[in-house]
């Protein structure tokens, strides 16, 4: 099938002049950045700043109005990329298939592409569910799970693919602090184990500064700053400062 990669390890991502408008409203207003193979690149930004739309472009679910996206130097969704690399995305909502059990969801990629025998798939599914702390939930239906559990199943489903590029949309947004730590560890583990390139969209500052090799802060479809966690922390731009240091005062 199209899905046996010949290149182990992560891929580079290059984004140039990426623009997208919906109904005249500009959501991505010219983005340029590079992500190195095997890097964990965190994208932060306020709600509605276009982070999800950016990830959808990176995996080819949306067509840009202008600009280009290169995966390992080739256009995203070109036949070469599709046949040589595996990509996975963890959706903000989980996007589990509601008609399938948790186990079937997690094993879907392997089963549909006939990459493994049913017994092997069952073993891998059990293993990945254990990684995200959901051991023994194979037979449950997604509709019976909490938001955070769905998110973790979605992460397990992405782990199964063993991708060269993995996109996480708010992986910890519905999780308690303890599960968040587990997910953060797994993001780093996965990178160390298979050198995957990871793009993580998150508001979670602890997660961002905990796992990132580099961080980009975007606002209104533009990049405010890109750099290592230390560089971003020291960035004097008032918008960046505000975003990074906003906190509740007792009201």
């Amino acid at each position, binding site marked *: 099938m199209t899905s046996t990669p010949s290149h182990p390890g992560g891929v580079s991502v290059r984004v140039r002049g990426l623009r997208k408008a919906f109904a005249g409203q500009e959501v991505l207003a010219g983005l340029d950045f590079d992500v190195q193979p095997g890097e964990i690149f965190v994208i932060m930004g306020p709600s509605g700043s276009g982070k999800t739309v950016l990830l959808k472009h990176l995996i080819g679910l949306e067509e840009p109005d202008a600009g280009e996206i290169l995966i390992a130097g080739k256009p995203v969704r070109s036949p070469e990329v599709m046949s040589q690399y595996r990509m996975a995305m963890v959706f903000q909502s989980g996007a*589990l298939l509601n008609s399938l059990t948790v186990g079937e969801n997690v094993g879907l990629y392997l089963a*549909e592409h006939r990459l493994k025998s049913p017994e092997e798939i069952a073993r891998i599914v059990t293993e990945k569910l254990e990684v995200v702390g959901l051991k023994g939930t194979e037979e449950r239906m997604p509709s019976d799970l909490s938001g955070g559990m769905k998110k973790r199943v979605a992460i397990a489903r992405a782990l199964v693919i063993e991708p060269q590029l993995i996109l996480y949309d708010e992986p910890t947004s519905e999780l308690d602090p303890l599960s968040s730590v587990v997910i953060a560890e797994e993001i780093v583990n996965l990178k160390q184990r298979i050198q995957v390139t990871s793009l993580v969209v998150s508001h979670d500052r602890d997660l961002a500064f905990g796992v990132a090799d580099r961080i980009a802060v975007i606002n209104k479809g533009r990049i405010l700053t890109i750099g290592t966690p230390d560089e971003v922390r020291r960035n004097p731009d008032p918008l960046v400062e505000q975003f990074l240091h906003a906190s509740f005062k007792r009201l």
Partner: protein
Amino acid sequence: MFQNVGEMVILFWSTLLALPATWRQRQKVSDQFFEIGNASLLMVCILSFFIGGVIALQTGPLLVERGLGSYVGGVVGFSICKELAPVMMSILIAGRIGSAMAAEIGSMRVYQEIDALRTMNISPIHYLVLPRLVAIALALPLLVTFAILVGWLGGALVCVANDHIAISFAAFFSALRDTVNVQDVANGVFKSFAFALIIATVSCHQGLITRGGPRGIGRSVTKAVVNSIVLIVFSDYLLTRILLK
């Protein structure tokens, strides 16, 4: 309503190109097939029985009065197998199964399940459309064959029971056999096969272009059913014209 005809033709064509993958999707085809059967077999029986009955009731006394009693079986048998069973059953299935297809695929669209499939390199056409199209294309002709037989039976029983008609069972079926030949039945069943393709294509297409939350799903379901029925009736005329020769 017809602005999407081009898209539907493309969807239908892509699904035909995917046909070689049917064997791999056989589990889903058989699931869909039995779902269609379970959901509609009883309805098909009841509906076709009464359609047969009412046609006998309408035409029987009229013909008998004029001394044409020996034609009743032919008229009832002919109209059921060539028109009423294929068209009415297809409309029933459009309402019963087409709506379910549009709702299911539409909600998968709205809740990003289809996006998720695409990120996994799983084609929605192979995974969703193909099994539904194949299943309904097998199931509907079978249901219609069944409906024709039950409809004839309904017509015959009414002819026996009604005092104004009073034709025996044997006389009804011998008249039917004189008028209706196997090709007429095949004709009707073939039409239902074409209608099955219409229902699946229209409903899956509506599902796939759903947008805008739960209300969007509702809109898609309504459109799938209405557009299927309009196209069924329209193509019924064309097919009849072509098959008439």
